[in-house]
């Protein structure tokens, strides 16, 4: 390979500004979409565990839709199709909003992840031995008590590692927002490439960014697992 690296070309003036804005936007996408995904995920888990057959059915369908449709399609759906589902006035308002692409990306990312997260949390809850719950009931504990002191602490410990994996996945997926012209880090690097043609440099830059974020994230998670969630016995 005969290629001369030129870092100065991509790290000066306007380009540096784009990169910094891109970093900021990527991080906000990551945090917001992950939080919303966990919130929806917890909510849907309860629906899925519900004894009401209708609620159980709706949650199951939701989970299947989330898990079986690619994230990119969710993003494109919220950007191009979703506004068209509304009456004309709302449609025009949505389409002329400059934040539509950002929120479409958040919605797509959150929904896509929420299905997985819900299944992870359900797994965590199901893994709590039934005998413990039966024993707690027989000792006269209330339902709320049992959730608070027996199910949740163990469920969180059970689902923490796969949850972190899924969030790391979601962090990487934020790069798909590029396709909606959201000015995140991938957009910034691709835009710089299309003007300066320094494709390798900008791709290395984006790689280092994702690598760092996910490395830090997984380290923090393993620290949390060891020190905060560790069983104290």
């Amino acid at each position, binding site marked *: 390979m*005969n*290629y001369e690296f030129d870092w100065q070309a991509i790290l000066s003036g306007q380009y540096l500004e784009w990169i910094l804005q891109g970093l900021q936007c990527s991080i906000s996408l990551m945090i917001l979409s992950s939080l919303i995904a966990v919130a929806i995920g917890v909510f849907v888990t309860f629906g899925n565990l519900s004894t009401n057959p209708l609620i159980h059915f709706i949650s199951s369908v939701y989970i299947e839709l989330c898990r079986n449709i690619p994230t990119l399609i969710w993003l494109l759906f919220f950007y191009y199709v979703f506004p068209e589902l509304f009456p004309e006035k709302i449609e025009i308002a949505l389409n002329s909003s*400059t934040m539509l692409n950002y929120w479409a990306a958040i919605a797509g990312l959150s929904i896509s992840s929420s299905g997985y997260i819900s299944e992870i949390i359900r797994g965590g809850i199901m893994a709590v031995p039934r005998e413990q719950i039966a024993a707690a009931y027989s000792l006269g504990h209330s339902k709320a008590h049992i959730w608070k002191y027996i199910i949740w602490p163990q469920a969180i410990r059970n689902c923490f590692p796969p949850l972190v994996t899924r969030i790391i996945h979601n962090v990487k997926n934020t790069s798909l927002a*590029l396709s909606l012209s959201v000015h995140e880090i991938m957009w910034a690097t691709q*835009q710089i490439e*299309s*003007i300066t*043609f320094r*494709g*390798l440099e900008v791709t290395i830059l984006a790689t280092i960014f994702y690598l760092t974020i996910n490395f830090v994230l997984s380290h923090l998670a393993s620290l949390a697992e060891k020190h905060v969630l560790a069983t104290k016995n």
Partner: protein
Amino acid sequence: MKKFNWKRRMALLLCLSVMSGGLAGCGGKKQESVLDKVTKEGVVHVGTANNNPPMNYLDEDGNWTGFDVDLADAIAEALGVKIERVVVNNKTRISFLANGTVDMVVSNLSHTRSRDEQIDFAEPAYLWTGKIAYAKKGMFNELTDLAGKRIAVDQGSNAYIAIQQAIEEANGEAPEIQTFQSNAECFLALKQGKVDAFTQDSVIIAGVAGKEGVDYEPISGIYSPGLYSIGVPLDDSKWRDKVSFVLQDLMKNGKYDEIYDKWFGPDGMYPLEPSAKPVLSKDAFGENELYVWPD
């Protein structure tokens, strides 16, 4: 526990240094000309996109087609080598030339100064077109009306810079550019009202809009020339000359006209103004004199 983490960190460091070493340690040696490589291997790698109708696109059966595709075929035939098509997009076409993935790019590539710093162009330009801004009928009259408006641009097109310059020169407020991943997405965004205008070379807008183009109109005329040229790697004069000569031979022997008429002639699939053909004005050397160098 500490030891384990340390090991992991070392492994990562090693990975990174191997990667960067591998990338950095390969400059400096004298390159053979692409021409020698192509003749030796009997294959020319041509980068062409597939989402810019009518220059290059996939037809209903999924076959790669378009003016660029036919021209690339003719060039490979004239070079006497097999063609190996490499799919590029408007962002990767320059990088692919710079890093040697392709030997030439025939992909609606306008000759611009900033691109000329990274690659070279064969002469002459094979199609004369240009950037126009396109919007719903009756919305805007002049380019300056687009000041401060939302404009769709395909990411990788030099329209990104050209439209801002054009509006700036007319002392208009900077527009808000939204970049999409294909020209079709730009047009969809225009249809849905996500942007106020879409700008690209006139020939591609005609191809992308197709029959739906009736509700839309160009805002004034061409504001930046798009001289479609064949891109070749930087500083390889031997190869650049060869491609230029082959292209000019095709123009002289009528093969170029054949392809042109098929796509852009009066009876072609996308009839264009006669000015799209790289022909000198009749005052220069006579009627219909092609823009080629004499022997």
